[in-house]
Protein backbone atom coordinates (compact mmCIF):
# COMPACT_ATOMS: atom_id res chain seq x y z
CA UNK A 1 0.00 0.00 0.00
CA UNK A 2 2.76 2.41 1.01
CA UNK A 3 4.73 1.57 -2.13
CA UNK A 4 1.74 2.35 -4.33
CA UNK A 5 1.05 5.50 -2.35
CA UNK A 6 4.66 6.53 -2.87
CA UNK A 7 4.49 5.81 -6.62
CA UNK A 8 1.32 7.72 -7.24
CA UNK A 9 1.90 10.58 -4.84
CA UNK A 10 5.31 11.39 -6.32
CA UNK A 11 3.95 11.00 -9.88
CA UNK A 12 0.96 13.17 -9.01
CA UNK A 13 3.18 15.81 -7.47
CA UNK A 14 5.39 15.72 -10.55
CA UNK A 15 2.43 16.27 -12.85
CA UNK A 16 1.16 19.11 -10.68
CA UNK A 17 4.48 20.85 -11.09
CA UNK A 18 4.26 20.54 -14.89
CA UNK A 19 2.88 24.07 -15.43
CA UNK A 20 6.19 25.41 -14.11
CA UNK A 21 7.88 23.74 -17.07
CA UNK A 22 5.16 24.32 -19.61
CA UNK A 23 7.35 25.78 -22.37
CA UNK A 24 9.63 22.74 -22.52
CA UNK A 25 6.72 20.37 -22.07
CA UNK A 26 4.77 22.00 -24.88
CA UNK A 27 7.80 21.90 -27.18
CA UNK A 28 8.22 18.17 -26.61
CA UNK A 29 4.51 17.46 -27.02
CA UNK A 30 4.23 19.50 -30.22
CA UNK A 31 7.35 17.80 -31.61
CA UNK A 32 5.82 14.40 -30.98
CA UNK A 33 2.50 15.61 -32.41
CA UNK A 34 4.33 16.50 -35.64
CA UNK A 35 5.97 13.08 -35.86
CA UNK A 36 2.74 11.23 -35.19
CA UNK A 37 0.85 13.47 -37.61
CA UNK A 38 3.29 12.69 -40.40
CA UNK A 39 3.31 8.97 -39.57
CA UNK A 40 -0.48 8.79 -39.57
CA UNK A 41 -0.68 10.87 -42.74
CA UNK A 42 1.69 8.66 -44.71
CA UNK A 43 0.25 5.42 -43.40
CA UNK A 44 -3.24 6.72 -44.22
CA UNK A 45 -2.12 6.88 -47.85
CA UNK A 46 -1.06 3.24 -47.77
CA UNK A 47 -4.22 2.24 -45.93
CA UNK A 48 -6.41 4.20 -48.35
CA UNK A 49 -4.67 2.66 -51.36
CA UNK A 50 -4.96 -0.84 -49.91
CA UNK A 51 -8.62 -0.31 -49.13
CA UNK A 52 -9.36 0.98 -52.63
CA UNK A 53 -7.69 -2.09 -54.06
CA UNK A 54 -9.33 -4.62 -51.79
CA UNK A 55 -12.72 -3.26 -50.78
CA UNK A 56 -14.49 -4.69 -53.80
CA UNK A 57 -12.65 -7.99 -53.69
CA UNK A 58 -15.52 -10.24 -52.77
CA UNK A 59 -14.49 -13.85 -51.97
CA UNK A 60 -17.31 -15.25 -54.15
CA UNK A 61 -15.98 -13.47 -57.22
CA UNK A 62 -13.12 -15.00 -59.20
CA UNK A 63 -10.88 -13.68 -61.91
CA UNK A 64 -9.26 -15.85 -64.56
CA UNK A 65 -6.03 -14.84 -66.32
CA UNK A 66 -3.68 -16.60 -68.64
CA UNK A 67 -1.32 -18.83 -66.73
CA UNK A 68 1.99 -17.10 -65.92
CA UNK A 69 0.61 -13.58 -66.13
CA UNK A 70 0.79 -11.46 -63.01
CA UNK A 71 -1.63 -8.79 -64.15
CA UNK A 72 -4.34 -8.23 -66.72
CA UNK A 73 -1.83 -6.24 -68.80
CA UNK A 74 0.18 -9.36 -69.50
CA UNK A 75 -2.75 -11.73 -69.85
CA UNK A 76 -4.63 -12.86 -72.95
CA UNK A 77 -7.57 -15.25 -73.48
CA UNK A 78 -9.21 -16.28 -76.73
CA UNK A 79 -12.98 -16.24 -77.20
CA UNK A 80 -13.34 -20.02 -76.91
CA UNK A 81 -11.51 -19.98 -73.63
CA UNK A 82 -13.71 -17.22 -72.20
CA UNK A 83 -16.82 -19.24 -73.12
CA UNK A 84 -15.46 -22.34 -71.44
CA UNK A 85 -14.69 -20.31 -68.34
CA UNK A 86 -18.19 -18.80 -68.21
CA UNK A 87 -19.76 -22.24 -68.47
CA UNK A 88 -17.57 -23.83 -65.82
CA UNK A 89 -19.13 -25.44 -62.74
CA UNK A 90 -19.52 -23.15 -59.74
CA UNK A 91 -20.40 -20.06 -61.78
CA UNK A 92 -23.66 -18.44 -60.68
CA UNK A 93 -26.33 -17.90 -63.29
CA UNK A 94 -29.41 -15.77 -63.78
CA UNK A 95 -32.09 -15.66 -66.49
CA UNK A 96 -29.64 -14.10 -68.94
CA UNK A 97 -27.07 -16.84 -68.45
CA UNK A 98 -23.83 -17.19 -66.44
CA UNK A 99 -22.77 -14.24 -64.28
CA UNK A 100 -19.50 -13.59 -66.04
CA UNK A 101 -17.74 -10.85 -67.90
CA UNK A 102 -14.92 -11.25 -70.40
CA UNK A 103 -12.89 -8.09 -70.11
CA UNK A 104 -10.28 -6.12 -71.97
CA UNK A 105 -7.98 -3.71 -70.15
CA UNK A 106 -6.22 -0.87 -71.98
CA UNK A 107 -4.55 2.32 -70.82
CA UNK A 108 -5.43 5.75 -72.17
CA UNK A 109 -3.94 9.17 -71.43
CA UNK A 110 -6.05 11.88 -69.85
CA UNK A 111 -5.05 15.17 -68.19
CA UNK A 112 -5.30 15.38 -64.41
CA UNK A 113 -7.62 18.04 -63.09
CA UNK A 114 -5.07 19.06 -60.45
CA UNK A 115 -1.98 19.56 -62.65
CA UNK A 116 -3.17 19.31 -66.24
CA UNK A 117 -0.47 16.73 -66.92
CA UNK A 118 -1.37 13.49 -68.69
CA UNK A 119 -1.71 10.35 -66.63
CA UNK A 120 -2.55 6.74 -67.42
CA UNK A 121 -6.21 5.91 -66.94
CA UNK A 122 -7.57 2.38 -67.28
CA UNK A 123 -10.23 1.89 -69.94
CA UNK A 124 -11.94 -1.43 -69.33
CA UNK A 125 -14.10 -3.29 -71.77
CA UNK A 126 -16.75 -5.26 -69.88
CA UNK A 127 -19.79 -7.32 -70.71
CA UNK A 128 -23.19 -6.51 -69.24
CA UNK A 129 -22.67 -9.34 -66.74
CA UNK A 130 -19.94 -7.24 -65.11
CA UNK A 131 -22.50 -5.28 -63.10
CA UNK A 132 -23.90 -8.43 -61.51
CA UNK A 133 -20.47 -9.99 -61.10
CA UNK A 134 -19.05 -6.97 -59.21
CA UNK A 135 -22.32 -6.48 -57.34
CA UNK A 136 -21.37 -3.05 -55.97
CA UNK A 137 -21.60 -0.89 -59.10
CA UNK A 138 -24.08 1.94 -58.76
CA UNK A 139 -24.90 4.46 -61.48
CA UNK A 140 -24.61 7.87 -59.77
CA UNK A 141 -25.44 9.98 -62.81
CA UNK A 142 -26.67 9.22 -66.35
CA UNK A 143 -27.09 5.59 -67.36
CA UNK A 144 -25.21 2.43 -68.28
CA UNK A 145 -23.47 2.28 -71.65
CA UNK A 146 -25.43 0.65 -74.45
CA UNK A 147 -24.10 -2.55 -75.98
CA UNK A 148 -22.42 -2.11 -79.35
CA UNK A 149 -22.03 1.67 -79.11
CA UNK A 150 -19.06 3.96 -78.46
CA UNK A 151 -20.31 4.86 -75.03
CA UNK A 152 -18.48 4.82 -71.72
CA UNK A 153 -19.34 5.17 -68.09
CA UNK A 154 -16.76 6.73 -65.77
CA UNK A 155 -15.86 5.71 -62.24
CA UNK A 156 -16.53 8.45 -59.68
CA UNK A 157 -12.87 8.59 -58.65
CA UNK A 158 -11.68 8.97 -62.24
CA UNK A 159 -14.32 11.64 -62.86
CA UNK A 160 -12.99 13.62 -59.89
CA UNK A 161 -9.32 13.19 -60.77
CA UNK A 162 -9.26 13.67 -64.53
CA UNK A 163 -10.43 16.57 -66.66
CA UNK A 164 -13.30 16.27 -69.13
CA UNK A 165 -14.93 13.18 -67.66
CA UNK A 166 -18.42 14.62 -67.26
CA UNK A 167 -21.66 13.10 -68.46
CA UNK A 168 -22.49 14.32 -71.96
CA UNK A 169 -18.89 15.01 -72.94
CA UNK A 170 -16.83 12.87 -75.28
CA UNK A 171 -13.32 11.58 -74.99
CA UNK A 172 -11.12 10.91 -77.99
CA UNK A 173 -8.92 7.89 -77.83
CA UNK A 174 -6.89 7.18 -80.96
CA UNK A 175 -9.23 7.51 -83.94
CA UNK A 176 -12.37 6.91 -81.87
CA UNK A 177 -14.62 9.20 -79.91
CA UNK A 178 -16.50 7.88 -76.91
CA UNK A 179 -19.47 9.54 -75.37
CA UNK A 180 -19.70 9.64 -71.59
CA UNK A 181 -23.18 8.50 -70.62
CA UNK A 182 -22.84 7.80 -66.92
CA UNK A 183 -20.84 8.09 -63.70
CA UNK A 184 -20.67 5.08 -61.40
CA UNK A 185 -19.49 4.31 -57.90
CA UNK A 186 -18.10 1.02 -56.59
CA UNK A 187 -18.13 1.50 -52.81
CA UNK A 188 -14.80 3.34 -53.01
CA UNK A 189 -13.15 0.36 -54.71
CA UNK A 190 -10.70 0.05 -57.55
CA UNK A 191 -13.35 0.15 -60.29
CA UNK A 192 -14.02 3.80 -59.42
CA UNK A 193 -10.64 4.65 -60.96
CA UNK A 194 -11.64 3.12 -64.29
CA UNK A 195 -13.66 3.96 -67.38
CA UNK A 196 -15.91 1.18 -68.62
CA UNK A 197 -17.25 0.41 -72.04
CA UNK A 198 -18.54 -2.57 -73.97
CA UNK A 199 -15.87 -5.21 -74.58
CA UNK A 200 -17.25 -5.87 -78.04
CA UNK A 201 -16.72 -2.21 -79.01
CA UNK A 202 -13.30 -1.89 -77.40
CA UNK A 203 -11.88 -5.00 -79.08
CA UNK A 204 -11.94 -3.70 -82.69
CA UNK A 205 -10.90 -0.22 -81.57
CA UNK A 206 -7.71 -1.76 -80.22
CA UNK A 207 -7.39 -4.45 -82.92
CA UNK A 208 -7.85 -7.24 -80.43
CA UNK A 209 -10.17 -9.34 -82.60
CA UNK A 210 -12.01 -11.68 -80.26
CA UNK A 211 -9.44 -11.86 -77.52
CA UNK A 212 -9.84 -10.64 -73.98
CA UNK A 213 -7.46 -10.39 -71.04
CA UNK A 214 -9.51 -11.64 -68.17
CA UNK A 215 -12.79 -13.21 -67.23
CA UNK A 216 -14.58 -12.18 -64.04
CA UNK A 217 -17.21 -14.55 -62.69
CA UNK A 218 -19.57 -14.56 -59.73
CA UNK A 219 -19.59 -17.97 -58.05
CA UNK A 220 -22.58 -19.65 -56.53
CA UNK A 221 -20.82 -19.20 -53.18
CA UNK A 222 -17.36 -18.52 -51.80
CA UNK A 223 -17.05 -22.26 -51.18
CA UNK A 224 -17.58 -23.00 -54.88
CA UNK A 225 -14.21 -21.46 -55.71
CA UNK A 226 -12.21 -24.68 -55.41
CA UNK A 227 -14.61 -26.59 -57.69
CA UNK A 228 -14.43 -23.76 -60.23
CA UNK A 229 -10.66 -23.55 -60.04
CA UNK A 230 -10.16 -27.29 -60.31
CA UNK A 231 -12.46 -27.49 -63.33
CA UNK A 232 -10.45 -24.85 -65.19
CA UNK A 233 -6.95 -25.86 -64.19
CA UNK A 234 -7.55 -29.52 -65.10
CA UNK A 235 -9.10 -28.66 -68.46
CA UNK A 236 -6.44 -29.52 -71.06
CA UNK A 237 -7.83 -26.92 -73.49
CA UNK A 238 -7.15 -24.12 -71.05
CA UNK A 239 -3.92 -22.61 -69.75
CA UNK A 240 -5.17 -20.32 -67.04
CA UNK A 241 -4.69 -19.23 -63.48
CA UNK A 242 -7.68 -18.71 -61.23
CA UNK A 243 -7.77 -16.34 -58.30
CA UNK A 244 -10.35 -15.09 -55.86
CA UNK A 245 -10.88 -11.41 -56.66
CA UNK A 246 -9.99 -10.48 -53.06
CA UNK A 247 -6.64 -12.28 -53.37
CA UNK A 248 -6.01 -10.79 -56.80
CA UNK A 249 -6.56 -7.23 -55.55
CA UNK A 250 -4.50 -7.90 -52.45
CA UNK A 251 -1.66 -9.12 -54.66
CA UNK A 252 -2.04 -6.13 -56.97
CA UNK A 253 -1.84 -3.66 -54.08
CA UNK A 254 1.08 -5.21 -52.22
CA UNK A 255 3.95 -3.46 -53.98
CA UNK A 256 2.57 0.07 -53.70
CA UNK A 257 1.25 -0.44 -50.18
CA UNK A 258 4.61 -1.83 -49.06
CA UNK A 259 6.46 1.02 -50.73
CA UNK A 260 4.32 3.73 -49.16
CA UNK A 261 4.41 2.03 -45.75
CA UNK A 262 8.19 1.66 -45.93
CA UNK A 263 8.62 5.32 -46.88
CA UNK A 264 6.20 6.34 -44.12
CA UNK A 265 7.90 4.29 -41.46
CA UNK A 266 11.33 5.48 -42.63
CA UNK A 267 10.30 9.14 -42.46
CA UNK A 268 8.54 8.63 -39.14
CA UNK A 269 11.57 6.82 -37.72
CA UNK A 270 13.87 9.68 -38.67
CA UNK A 271 11.44 12.22 -37.28
CA UNK A 272 10.85 9.97 -34.29
CA UNK A 273 14.57 10.04 -33.51
CA UNK A 274 14.38 13.83 -33.54
CA UNK A 275 11.36 13.74 -31.26
CA UNK A 276 13.11 11.22 -29.01
CA UNK A 277 16.03 13.60 -28.52
CA UNK A 278 13.52 16.40 -27.97
CA UNK A 279 11.81 14.34 -25.29
CA UNK A 280 15.18 13.41 -23.75
CA UNK A 281 16.17 17.06 -23.67
CA UNK A 282 12.87 18.05 -22.10
CA UNK A 283 13.03 15.37 -19.45
CA UNK A 284 16.70 16.01 -18.64
CA UNK A 285 15.75 19.68 -18.21
CA UNK A 286 12.77 18.69 -16.07
CA UNK A 287 14.97 16.52 -13.88
CA UNK A 288 17.61 19.27 -13.64
CA UNK A 289 14.94 21.86 -12.72
CA UNK A 290 13.54 19.56 -10.08
CA UNK A 291 16.75 18.11 -8.70
CA UNK A 292 16.29 19.87 -5.34
CA UNK A 293 12.66 18.78 -5.13
CA UNK A 294 13.59 15.21 -6.01
CA UNK A 295 16.37 15.26 -3.42
CA UNK A 296 13.95 16.67 -0.84
CA UNK A 297 11.45 13.89 -1.51
CA UNK A 298 14.19 11.32 -1.20
CA UNK A 299 15.49 12.91 2.01
CA UNK A 300 11.97 12.62 3.43
CA UNK A 301 12.13 8.89 2.73
CA UNK A 302 10.65 8.43 -0.74
CA UNK A 303 12.53 5.73 -2.64
CA UNK A 304 14.29 5.88 -6.00
CA UNK A 305 11.56 3.79 -7.66
CA UNK A 306 8.83 6.41 -7.27
CA UNK A 307 11.20 9.05 -8.67
CA UNK A 308 11.90 6.92 -11.77
CA UNK A 309 8.20 6.20 -12.11
CA UNK A 310 7.24 9.86 -11.82
CA UNK A 311 9.66 10.99 -14.53
CA UNK A 312 8.52 8.17 -16.82
CA UNK A 313 4.87 8.98 -16.20
CA UNK A 314 5.46 12.61 -17.11
CA UNK A 315 7.36 11.69 -20.25
CA UNK A 316 4.82 9.11 -21.38
CA UNK A 317 1.83 11.35 -20.66
CA UNK A 318 3.43 14.23 -22.57
CA UNK A 319 4.11 11.88 -25.46
CA UNK A 320 0.60 10.47 -25.43
CA UNK A 321 -0.84 13.99 -25.32
CA UNK A 322 1.40 14.99 -28.24
CA UNK A 323 0.62 11.77 -30.06
CA UNK A 324 -3.11 12.26 -29.52
CA UNK A 325 -2.87 15.80 -30.81
CA UNK A 326 -0.95 14.67 -33.89
CA UNK A 327 -3.31 11.78 -34.53
CA UNK A 328 -6.37 14.03 -34.16
CA UNK A 329 -4.86 16.60 -36.50
CA UNK A 330 -4.00 13.88 -39.02
CA UNK A 331 -7.53 12.50 -38.79
CA UNK A 332 -9.09 15.91 -39.37
CA UNK A 333 -6.69 16.81 -42.18
CA UNK A 334 -6.25 13.52 -44.00
CA UNK A 335 -9.14 11.14 -43.40
CA UNK A 336 -11.15 10.94 -46.61
CA UNK A 337 -8.73 13.19 -48.51
CA UNK A 338 -8.84 12.07 -52.16
CA UNK A 339 -5.73 11.48 -54.21
CA UNK A 340 -4.46 9.26 -56.98
CA UNK A 341 -1.29 7.38 -57.57
CA UNK A 342 0.03 4.94 -60.11
CA UNK A 343 -0.44 1.26 -59.53
CA UNK A 344 2.78 -0.39 -60.72
CA UNK A 345 1.04 -3.61 -61.58
CA UNK A 346 -1.26 -2.00 -64.13
CA UNK A 347 0.74 1.17 -64.83
CA UNK A 348 -2.47 3.13 -64.40
CA UNK A 349 -3.75 5.65 -61.90
CA UNK A 350 -5.74 4.47 -58.92
CA UNK A 351 -7.84 7.05 -57.16
CA UNK A 352 -8.40 6.53 -53.47
CA UNK A 353 -9.25 8.27 -50.23
CA UNK A 354 -6.77 8.48 -47.31
CA UNK A 355 -7.94 6.19 -44.53
CA UNK A 356 -7.15 7.10 -40.93
CA UNK A 357 -8.39 3.94 -39.24
CA UNK A 358 -8.70 3.25 -35.49
CA UNK A 359 -5.91 0.67 -35.80
CA UNK A 360 -3.68 3.28 -37.40
CA UNK A 361 -4.46 5.72 -34.60
CA UNK A 362 -3.68 3.02 -32.06
CA UNK A 363 -0.32 2.34 -33.71
CA UNK A 364 0.45 6.06 -33.72
CA UNK A 365 -0.29 6.38 -30.00
CA UNK A 366 1.83 3.28 -29.34
CA UNK A 367 4.67 4.91 -31.30
CA UNK A 368 4.28 8.10 -29.24
CA UNK A 369 4.33 6.03 -26.04
CA UNK A 370 7.59 4.39 -27.13
CA UNK A 371 9.10 7.82 -27.71
CA UNK A 372 7.89 8.80 -24.24
CA UNK A 373 9.45 5.75 -22.59
CA UNK A 374 12.70 6.21 -24.53
CA UNK A 375 12.79 9.91 -23.74
CA UNK A 376 12.03 9.48 -20.06
CA UNK A 377 14.03 6.43 -19.07
CA UNK A 378 17.56 7.84 -18.95
CA UNK A 379 16.58 11.14 -17.32
CA UNK A 380 14.57 9.11 -14.78
CA UNK A 381 17.57 6.94 -13.97
CA UNK A 382 19.75 10.02 -13.64
CA UNK A 383 17.21 11.54 -11.24
CA UNK A 384 17.19 8.40 -9.15
CA UNK A 385 20.98 8.07 -9.06
CA UNK A 386 21.70 11.67 -8.15
CA UNK A 387 23.22 11.82 -4.64
CA UNK A 388 20.61 13.27 -2.28
CA UNK A 389 23.08 15.53 -0.51
CA UNK A 390 24.16 17.01 -3.86
CA UNK A 391 20.56 17.53 -4.99
CA UNK A 392 19.66 19.35 -1.77
CA UNK A 393 22.34 21.94 -2.50
CA UNK A 394 21.00 22.72 -6.00
CA UNK A 395 19.43 26.13 -6.31
Amino acid at each position, binding site marked *: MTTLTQLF*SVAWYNLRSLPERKAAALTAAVGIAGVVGVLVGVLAIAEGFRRAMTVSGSPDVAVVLRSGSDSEMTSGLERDATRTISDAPGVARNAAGPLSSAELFVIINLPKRSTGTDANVPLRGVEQGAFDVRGNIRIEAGRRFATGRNEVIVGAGAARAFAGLDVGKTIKVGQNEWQIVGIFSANGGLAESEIWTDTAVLQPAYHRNNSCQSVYVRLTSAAAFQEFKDALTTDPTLNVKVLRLSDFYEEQSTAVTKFITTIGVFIATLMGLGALFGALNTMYSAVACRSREIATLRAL*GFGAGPVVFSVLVESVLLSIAGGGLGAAAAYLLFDGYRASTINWQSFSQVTFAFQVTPILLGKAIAFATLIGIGGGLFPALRAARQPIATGLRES
Partner: protein
Amino acid sequence: MNASSQPLVSIHNVTRTFTRGAENVHVLTGLELAVADGEFLALMGPSGSGKSTLLNLIGGLDRPTAGSLAIGGDRVDQLSDRQLAAWRARHIGFVFQFYNLLPALNAERNVELPLLLTGLNKAERRRHVAAAFEAVGLTHRAKHFPRTLSGGEQQRVGIARAIVTDPTLLLCDEPTGDLDRKSGDEILTLLQSLNRDHGKTIIMVTHDPHASARASRTVYLDKGQLSNTPTA
Protein backbone atom coordinates in the same frame (compact mmCIF):
# COMPACT_ATOMS: atom_id res chain seq x y z
CA MET B 1 15.68 8.36 27.38
CA ASN B 2 17.26 11.53 28.88
CA ALA B 3 20.58 13.32 28.52
CA SER B 4 22.28 11.21 31.16
CA SER B 5 21.48 7.77 29.72
CA GLN B 6 22.82 6.02 26.57
CA PRO B 7 23.43 8.46 23.71
CA LEU B 8 20.81 8.64 20.97
CA VAL B 9 23.48 9.40 18.38
CA SER B 10 26.74 7.54 18.65
CA ILE B 11 29.46 8.30 16.12
CA HIS B 12 32.71 6.42 16.45
CA ASN B 13 35.91 6.97 14.48
CA VAL B 14 33.98 8.20 11.42
CA THR B 15 35.89 9.25 8.34
CA ARG B 16 34.43 10.74 5.21
CA THR B 17 36.66 11.12 2.22
CA PHE B 18 35.62 12.53 -1.15
CA THR B 19 37.47 11.86 -4.35
CA ARG B 20 37.88 14.87 -6.62
CA GLY B 21 39.77 13.85 -9.74
CA ALA B 22 42.97 12.21 -8.58
CA GLU B 23 42.82 13.86 -5.19
CA ASN B 24 41.28 12.49 -1.99
CA VAL B 25 39.73 15.15 0.19
CA HIS B 26 39.40 14.08 3.83
CA VAL B 27 36.45 16.08 5.17
CA LEU B 28 35.98 14.15 8.42
CA THR B 29 38.74 12.13 10.05
CA GLY B 30 38.30 9.77 13.00
CA LEU B 31 35.39 11.76 14.32
CA GLU B 32 33.77 10.93 17.65
CA LEU B 33 30.42 12.33 18.80
CA ALA B 34 27.68 11.33 21.17
CA VAL B 35 24.36 13.14 21.36
CA ALA B 36 22.00 12.33 24.19
CA ASP B 37 18.31 11.83 23.77
CA GLY B 38 16.54 15.16 24.38
CA GLU B 39 19.64 17.23 23.69
CA PHE B 40 19.68 20.38 21.52
CA LEU B 41 23.12 20.39 19.96
CA ALA B 42 24.52 23.25 17.90
CA LEU B 43 27.20 22.32 15.41
CA MET B 44 29.39 25.25 14.42
CA GLY B 45 32.46 25.72 12.33
CA PRO B 46 33.84 27.66 9.39
CA SER B 47 32.61 27.11 5.85
CA GLY B 48 33.92 23.89 4.38
CA SER B 49 34.66 22.41 7.80
CA GLY B 50 32.34 19.46 7.18
CA LYS B 51 29.29 20.48 9.21
CA SER B 52 26.78 19.63 6.48
CA THR B 53 28.68 16.45 5.63
CA LEU B 54 28.35 15.34 9.25
CA LEU B 55 24.67 16.26 9.30
CA ASN B 56 24.15 14.27 6.06
CA LEU B 57 25.82 11.24 7.62
CA ILE B 58 23.65 11.45 10.74
CA GLY B 59 20.55 11.86 8.56
CA GLY B 60 21.36 8.86 6.38
CA LEU B 61 21.77 10.98 3.24
CA ASP B 62 25.40 9.93 2.89
CA ARG B 63 27.60 7.10 4.16
CA PRO B 64 30.87 7.27 6.07
CA THR B 65 34.01 6.08 4.32
CA ALA B 66 34.96 4.36 7.59
CA GLY B 67 33.77 4.15 11.16
CA SER B 68 30.43 3.41 12.76
CA LEU B 69 27.32 5.48 13.14
CA ALA B 70 24.45 4.35 15.34
CA ILE B 71 21.24 6.24 15.97
CA GLY B 72 18.73 4.95 18.47
CA GLY B 73 20.60 1.63 18.31
CA ASP B 74 20.39 1.34 14.49
CA ARG B 75 23.71 0.98 12.66
CA VAL B 76 22.85 3.51 9.98
CA ASP B 77 26.12 2.93 8.13
CA GLN B 78 25.15 -0.69 7.52
CA LEU B 79 21.69 -0.14 6.00
CA SER B 80 20.98 -0.62 2.30
CA ASP B 81 19.68 2.33 0.26
CA ARG B 82 16.14 1.03 0.51
CA GLN B 83 16.41 0.42 4.26
CA LEU B 84 17.99 3.82 4.70
CA ALA B 85 15.08 5.55 2.91
CA ALA B 86 12.59 3.78 5.18
CA TRP B 87 14.73 4.54 8.23
CA ARG B 88 14.86 8.26 7.34
CA ALA B 89 11.10 8.34 6.94
CA ARG B 90 10.65 6.83 10.41
CA HIS B 91 13.34 8.52 12.44
CA ILE B 92 14.54 11.77 10.90
CA GLY B 93 12.94 15.18 10.44
CA PHE B 94 14.91 17.55 8.23
CA VAL B 95 14.77 21.33 8.41
CA PHE B 96 16.61 22.98 5.52
CA GLN B 97 18.14 26.43 5.18
CA PHE B 98 16.04 27.22 2.09
CA TYR B 99 12.95 25.40 3.40
CA ASN B 100 12.80 22.98 0.41
CA LEU B 101 9.03 23.12 0.20
CA LEU B 102 7.50 21.73 -2.99
CA PRO B 103 6.12 24.76 -4.82
CA ALA B 104 3.24 22.94 -6.52
CA LEU B 105 1.75 21.84 -3.20
CA ASN B 106 0.14 24.04 -0.58
CA ALA B 107 1.51 24.16 2.94
CA GLU B 108 -0.87 21.45 4.17
CA ARG B 109 0.09 19.04 1.39
CA ASN B 110 3.78 19.73 1.95
CA VAL B 111 3.42 18.80 5.59
CA GLU B 112 1.40 15.72 4.69
CA LEU B 113 4.15 14.34 2.40
CA PRO B 114 6.15 12.36 5.02
CA LEU B 115 2.90 10.84 6.30
CA LEU B 116 2.30 9.23 2.90
CA LEU B 117 5.11 6.87 3.83
CA THR B 118 3.54 5.79 7.10
CA GLY B 119 0.46 3.87 6.04
CA LEU B 120 -1.86 6.19 7.98
CA ASN B 121 -5.28 6.72 6.46
CA LYS B 122 -6.44 10.10 5.22
CA ALA B 123 -8.29 11.09 8.40
CA GLU B 124 -5.30 10.20 10.56
CA ARG B 125 -2.98 12.08 8.26
CA ARG B 126 -5.25 15.12 8.45
CA ARG B 127 -5.19 14.97 12.24
CA HIS B 128 -1.39 14.76 12.38
CA VAL B 129 -1.03 17.64 9.92
CA ALA B 130 -3.38 19.82 11.97
CA ALA B 131 -1.38 19.06 15.13
CA ALA B 132 1.89 19.94 13.40
CA PHE B 133 0.49 23.25 12.15
CA GLU B 134 -0.75 24.03 15.61
CA ALA B 135 2.68 23.28 17.07
CA VAL B 136 4.32 25.80 14.74
CA GLY B 137 1.48 28.34 15.10
CA LEU B 138 0.57 28.45 11.43
CA THR B 139 -2.86 26.83 11.24
CA HIS B 140 -4.35 29.89 9.53
CA ARG B 141 -1.85 29.61 6.63
CA ALA B 142 -2.21 25.88 5.99
CA LYS B 143 -3.96 26.28 2.65
CA HIS B 144 -1.44 28.75 1.26
CA PHE B 145 1.13 27.87 -1.35
CA PRO B 146 4.81 28.41 -0.47
CA ARG B 147 5.20 31.37 -2.86
CA THR B 148 2.59 33.31 -0.90
CA LEU B 149 4.30 32.75 2.45
CA SER B 150 7.10 34.81 4.02
CA GLY B 151 10.49 33.21 4.66
CA GLY B 152 9.69 32.76 8.35
CA GLU B 153 6.34 31.18 7.54
CA GLN B 154 7.91 28.85 4.99
CA GLN B 155 10.43 27.73 7.59
CA ARG B 156 7.59 27.08 10.04
CA VAL B 157 5.97 24.90 7.39
CA GLY B 158 9.34 23.18 6.96
CA ILE B 159 9.48 22.52 10.71
CA ALA B 160 5.87 21.27 10.71
CA ARG B 161 6.84 18.83 7.93
CA ALA B 162 9.88 17.74 9.97
CA ILE B 163 7.90 17.00 13.14
CA VAL B 164 4.67 15.65 11.62
CA THR B 165 5.79 12.01 11.86
CA ASP B 166 7.13 12.55 15.40
CA PRO B 167 10.67 11.57 14.39
CA THR B 168 13.44 10.46 16.74
CA LEU B 169 15.75 13.24 15.66
CA LEU B 170 15.42 16.70 14.12
CA LEU B 171 18.30 17.75 11.87
CA CYS B 172 18.40 21.45 11.06
CA ASP B 173 20.83 22.76 8.46
CA GLU B 174 21.23 26.52 9.01
CA PRO B 175 17.52 26.90 9.75
CA THR B 176 17.81 30.67 10.21
CA GLY B 177 20.42 31.25 7.51
CA ASP B 178 17.93 32.69 5.03
CA LEU B 179 15.88 34.70 7.52
CA ASP B 180 16.03 38.18 9.01
CA ARG B 181 16.86 38.46 12.70
CA LYS B 182 13.25 38.69 13.89
CA SER B 183 12.05 35.69 11.87
CA GLY B 184 15.21 33.81 12.81
CA ASP B 185 14.56 34.43 16.50
CA GLU B 186 11.01 33.13 16.13
CA ILE B 187 12.27 29.96 14.48
CA LEU B 188 14.90 29.46 17.18
CA THR B 189 12.27 29.96 19.85
CA LEU B 190 10.12 27.38 18.14
CA LEU B 191 13.00 24.89 17.97
CA GLN B 192 13.79 25.54 21.62
CA SER B 193 10.17 24.91 22.50
CA LEU B 194 10.14 21.66 20.56
CA ASN B 195 13.24 20.59 22.47
CA ARG B 196 12.16 21.72 25.95
CA ASP B 197 8.43 21.17 25.83
CA HIS B 198 8.19 18.19 23.51
CA GLY B 199 11.50 16.49 24.23
CA LYS B 200 12.73 16.58 20.63
CA THR B 201 16.40 15.82 20.11
CA ILE B 202 17.79 18.45 17.75
CA ILE B 203 21.10 18.79 15.96
CA MET B 204 21.45 22.20 14.35
CA VAL B 205 24.20 23.33 12.00
CA THR B 206 24.74 27.07 12.22
CA HIS B 207 27.27 29.81 11.61
CA ASP B 208 25.47 32.12 13.94
CA PRO B 209 26.61 32.34 17.62
CA HIS B 210 23.27 33.95 18.40
CA ALA B 211 21.55 30.78 17.17
CA SER B 212 23.96 28.41 18.89
CA ALA B 213 23.28 30.21 22.19
CA ARG B 214 19.79 28.74 22.11
CA ALA B 215 21.16 25.20 22.07
CA SER B 216 21.91 23.17 25.20
CA ARG B 217 25.37 22.35 23.92
CA THR B 218 27.62 23.57 21.12
CA VAL B 219 30.40 21.65 19.42
CA TYR B 220 32.86 23.06 16.90
CA LEU B 221 34.07 21.33 13.79
CA ASP B 222 37.32 22.29 12.13
CA LYS B 223 39.63 20.35 9.82
CA GLY B 224 37.50 17.25 10.22
CA GLN B 225 37.71 17.17 14.02
CA LEU B 226 35.25 18.15 16.73
CA SER B 227 36.00 20.14 19.85
CA ASN B 228 34.01 21.76 22.63
CA THR B 229 35.64 25.13 22.09
CA PRO B 230 35.94 27.25 18.97
CA THR B 231 39.32 27.15 17.23
CA ALA B 232 41.20 30.44 17.04
